[in-house]
């Protein structure tokens, strides 16, 4: 045994192991890939900056144009309201689909079949033409007098058919997302709630839906961003104040389609980015208990004991329960829970 080996053995015996300091594996491919990507990116930037036909001056002139900004506003309003209609309908449809009542189940199925089975563009044209079938909508007593009347055939009122068309179409897709979410919640959750004397609606709203939201939110965020861009189809209604229509109109007037496409794209990207931030926080909220485990208060004495190299066994908080985790148990201990 050399002196060095003896030294190591000594160190090991005294409790501090010799940590491995290995030479890491080299990854030359990464450097090559980075170089290629950088060159391509530089070429793209150079082209964007030096090609006068991109018309950056025009982009700058129109990016904050009153009509464009109003178009962004209308596009946002269309997105938010049609998603709101779609979400409300989707919850109802998903609950109906799980109902014991066969009539409700079949109606829900039929709705999804119909609205998912026809193109949204066709539906939007149809909703525009509803004004021909029904020039006015009246709220009143069935077969009796009308209490309030809304004139649909007024050409400035394309907004209502537009959000109806977008919302009803979307509800069919969202209903399937919500159904998948509800199904993802373990049946034992419902049984436990039933055994406590809770009932259908309450179990759905308080136990199942909040946990299903974890699964529902990411694809719904996806759908919302999709909807933002689907609103560009509302010219089919016709509704002509949204971002795509306005920027196209300006492009046709100025004979400069490329800069105005860039303007529209920039706005869509900005709004999408903002929506993604919102989605992040919603996901965080509904991830509580699973993805988002708030660091719970830890008994300081136990934490200290654990940090000092407790093996885990017997270092629990005096409850007599052994918790795995040992030296790293500075935060709450997470164990396989089978869920």
């Amino acid at each position, binding site marked *: 045994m050399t002196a060095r080996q003896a030294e190591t053995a000594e160190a090991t015996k005294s409790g501090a192991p010799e940590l491995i300091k290995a030479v890491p594996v080299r990854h030359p491919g990464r450097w090559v890939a980075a170089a290629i990507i950088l060159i391509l990116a530089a070429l793209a930037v150079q082209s964007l900056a030096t090609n006068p036909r991109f018309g950056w001056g025009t982009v700058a002139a129109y990016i904050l144009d009153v009509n464009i900004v109003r178009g962004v506003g209308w596009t946002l309003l269309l997105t938010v309201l049609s998603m709101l209609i779609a979400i409300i309908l989707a919850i109802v449809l998903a609950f109906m689909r799980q109902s014991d009542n066969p009539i409700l189940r079949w109606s829900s199925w039929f709705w999804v079949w119909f609205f998912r089975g026809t193109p949204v563009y066709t539906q939007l044209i149809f909703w525009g033409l509803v004004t021909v079938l029904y020039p006015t909508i009246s709220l009143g007593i069935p077969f009796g007098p009308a209490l309030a009347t809304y004139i649909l055939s007024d050409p400035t009122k394309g907004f209502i058919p537009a959000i109806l068309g977008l919302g009803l179409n979307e509800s069919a897709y969202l209903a399937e997302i919500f159904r998948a979410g509800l199904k993802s919640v*373990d049946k*034992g*959750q419902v*049984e*436990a*709630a*039933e*055994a*406590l*004397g*809770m*009932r*259908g609606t*309450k179990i759905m709203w*308080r*136990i199942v839906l*909040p*946990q299903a939201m974890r699964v529902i939110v990411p694809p719904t965020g996806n759908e919302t961003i999709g909807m933002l861009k689907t609103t560009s189809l509302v010219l089919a209604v016709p509704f002509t104040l949204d971002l795509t229509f306005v920027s196209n109109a300006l492009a046709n007037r100025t004979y400069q389609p490329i800069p105005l496409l860039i303007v529209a794209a920039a706005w869509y990207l900005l709004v999408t980015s903002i929506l993604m931030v919102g989605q992040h926080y919603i996901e965080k909220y*509904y991830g*509580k*208990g*699973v993805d988002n*485990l*708030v660091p*719970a*208060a830890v*008994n300081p004495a136990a934490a200290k004991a654990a940090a000092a190299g407790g093996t885990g066994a017997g270092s629990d*908080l005096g*409850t*007599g*329960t*052994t*918790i*795995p985790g040992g030296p790293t148990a500075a935060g*709450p*201990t*997470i*164990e396989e*829970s*089978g*869920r």
Partner: protein
Amino acid sequence: MSTPAQTTPNSQPAPAPASLRGAKDLVRIEGVHKYFGEHHVLRGIDMTVKQGEVSVLIGPSGSGKSTLLRCVNHLETISAGRIWVNDELIGYRERAGKLHELHVKEIAAQRRNIGMVFQRFNLFGHKTALENIIEAPIQVKGQDKATAKKRALELLDRVGLSERANHYPAQLSGGQQQRVAIARALAMDPELMLFDEPTSALDPELVGDVLNVMKDLAKSGMTMVVVTHEIGFAREVGDTLTFMDGGVVVESGNPRDVIANPQHERTRSFLSKVL
């Protein structure tokens, strides 16, 4: 064998242990059958559980013991027979010799008095331990939040988990989750507690804590029906031990007698495997 009566064969109700003589029957199960499609899971079960009794059900998997337990709070509907809890017919109303299904609302009301603990805990994953316990008292019984919280903290203390009140189920070990689940059931002040293999999903070292909580509960006079493989628990805490196999009660009696001196070959062979 001490007395012949203690090991009455087949589906005769077990005689009451001495300490419970005179207590009223809290659970009465008469002629219960259960089919899952073609599968005849329960083939005529008769059983009574007296107030304050700890009744332990054992048997091989597939013997119908968990199904029977789930029939008591109507999580499963029975195909034939009757079950009463506290003289109330479970799941049905009998009028003029005809059975009428109870409304969901009435079934929910019956379940309020029957606590249940599941093999897989089934704690609500999006709620902390404390929130799990106060959910039903607030939502079902209409208790105010402060009262429910105070009681929940007492119950958490009772199961030894005071400092885990604000942990989510995913932050708790299996044994801790199961103890929270017991506290959650107790928060409704049930007169009967059903345990469906409460320790079967636990690491061996965590079983003891859960069994200790159950022992304390039994000592406090709670009526309990326990489906378990813990023969030690049955011997120590049980007032009655019922061995089921193939959807029938094979034998029933004082746990110490049944374990030490099984009368049936099937009981003997089962016990020889689990002991």
